[in-house]
């Protein structure tokens, strides 16, 4: 046991000492021309979103599928596992009030981050995760059964599936026709919400999809392991 530890530490130290003397820091990076091209072609202020959803959208397609497979994998793998009891959750009054407040704020942040994803920092994934984590916090600290029921009430499952299909088809359109933007770019002034063409729509759908997926994943965990 001790030998193993010493061996492990020495090997890892050796590797990283070699690393430090090898890394070559002389970079030939010039971002200006890339940014010029991106702004000229996509016409949105946030160039990261332009790369993420236009020039390298093929990667993002895979990313969306990886996330969906991950969520479904978690759900299906945990299906046969024993459930924990949820009914007897002790609720603190203050926590309930605060977490309801946080819920309301986070819905606003979700919409802002998602719809402004092409103008200011943000995007579908971050927005969806923000909303999901705040709902999980609400459920864990206040009433988990209430939080669980909204998934059925809002028909999130159907919404999520529709969102996935539309995302995939929009991305395929973007891959097949390089100039596919719904033609909104030209009509709107630079920097307004609608100037993104389909980008705000894709961001919103990714946000919904990620929110539903992350919430589903977290709720499966809570159902199996119990609340706080």
């Amino acid at each position, binding site marked *: 046991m001790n030998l*193993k530890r010493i*061996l*492990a530490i020495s*090997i*890892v130290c*050796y*590797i990283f000492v*070699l*690393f430090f003397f*090898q*890394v*070559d*820091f*002389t*970079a*030939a*990076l*010039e971002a200006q021309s*890339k940014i010029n*091209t*991106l702004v000229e*072609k996509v016409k949105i202020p946030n160039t990261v979103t332009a*790369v993420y959803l236009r*020039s*390298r959208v*093929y*990667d993002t*397609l*895979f*990313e969306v*599928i*990886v996330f*969906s*497979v*991950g969520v*479904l*994998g978690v759900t*299906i*793998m945990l299906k*046969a596992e024993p459930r924990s009891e949820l009914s007897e959750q002790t609720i603190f009054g203050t926590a309930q009030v605060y977490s309801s407040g946080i819920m309301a704020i986070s819905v606003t942040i979700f919409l802002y981050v998602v719809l402004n994803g092409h103008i200011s920092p943000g995007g579908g994934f971050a927005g969806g995760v923000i909303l999901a984590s705040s709902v999980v916090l609400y459920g864990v600290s206040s009433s988990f059964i209430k939080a669980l029921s909204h998934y059925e009430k809002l028909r999130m499952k159907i919404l999520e*599936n529709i969102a*996935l*299909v539309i995302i*995939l*088809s929009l991305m*395929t359109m*973007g*891959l097949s026709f*390089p100039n596919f933007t719904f033609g909104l770019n030209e009509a709107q002034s630079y920097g307004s919400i609608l100037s993104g063409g389909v980008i705000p729509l894709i961001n919103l759908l990714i946000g919904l999809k990620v929110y539903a997926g992350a919430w589903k994943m977290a709720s499966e965990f809570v159902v199996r392991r119990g609340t706080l």
Partner: protein
Amino acid sequence: MILYLSIIPLLLGGVSLILNQRTKITIVLTFTSLLTSIVILLFNIGKNFEMVIGNWGTLGISIGYDEFALPFLLAVIVVLSAITLNSLQKSYDGFFYALITLLLGSLNAVFITRDLFNVYVSFELASIIGFILIAYGRKGKQIWATVKYMLISALGFNFYLIGIGLVYMKSGTFSFSALDYMDKLPAVLIFTGLSVKSGLFLLSMWLPDAHANAITEVSPILSGLMVKIEDYLVIRFLQYGSFQWLRNFYLVIGTFSAVAGVLFAMNAKKAKDVLAYHTFSQIGFIIAASNMAAAWHAFSHAVFKGLLFMTAGNIKERLGTQKIQEWKGKINIKEYIPLLVGSAAIMGTPLTSGFVTKNGIMDSISGPAKYFLVVASIGTVISFSKLIFVGVSKEKMKLRWNMWLAYGIMVAAVFIHGIIGFDTHHTLDALIMIATGIPLFFMLKKFLNPLPRIFERLDNALILYLLLFGIMLTFVLE
């Protein structure tokens, strides 16, 4: 056009993920995507091109197609169609077929991409599907095999990301062509980062556990296709300048893996363990040569190893055990023939695909490594004699049509490949190898006992991997 090789299966797979309650629709979608892949592949055979998706220049993702990708794309189609046929009429749900469709898309994507980061993304999708498929039976052993695989491979992929980060810092693009002007460090990081999934001895010690414990339909995918991704990338990267110096290293580690894998396989007692250890050995052959012949050996290995794993899995499901001792006299002739064909191919018998491609590898290697590979070949004969002399029962057994078809596709692929490429000048060597191997098996039979599996523990596997990583980094120092 070539882009749709991956896009169509991904789209249909996304639809099947949604419809995972309706098994029949997902099966139809799987076959549809297999058919479209075949059609698109037929249109592209013989071409050689590279292009950027959507005219983005260095900002976009480049894809391409050439002769190196053909064996791998063919292997994907053959193995996945056989697996899907074999899985019909068993109790698989729609999610399984959705995963198979997505796997088809992601594997096709790896074999056509020319972008370093896209390799990461599509490889990661394929591996996530692999993780879920290994644990599909929900048994303790399977879950532990998955966790081991996930931890080691996730660590390796972070090294890969550091490597491509260095490439980007130097060149400003993720395209493969940037690899021409790199120094040695990114090459080492990229190779070791990906090699956790390559199936080489010492580098991926999680493999026997995962391959031997997975369910019948999944083992062929893991052994036939998942480990081939890294083999393809090794062969592909060798075309670029900064990887050339690694060729000798590939030769050494490939030969070592070929011999060590055979040593473990000869001593194993369980059928799927034997096959899993032979993955080490055959991948060793491929990596040692790393040329066009190796690419075709990857194809033939995918087919005959898939056939062997599928047959062994079906027999295990029927008899309830995978110890070869207890199979004696219980195997039906209809299961014995695929087993025999697969074993003949892996041993390199003339007229099978293994003979053609193994000779191609042997021709391209010179020096002392060749003798070790001959030893490994004889060892292969010894260890597969266990499966050949297993004894056939006279009982009647009804084989369902889909299994007939599944076996038929693979057996036909083995023989067609073997007959097209048949060449007389190595026939005598192959026959001599088989003739020495079988008597040796009967002599050594008593001394063969399973070797300890101490290297396969999680911590030891991680330490071995990092040890080899350290050795490779030492070579970078001038």
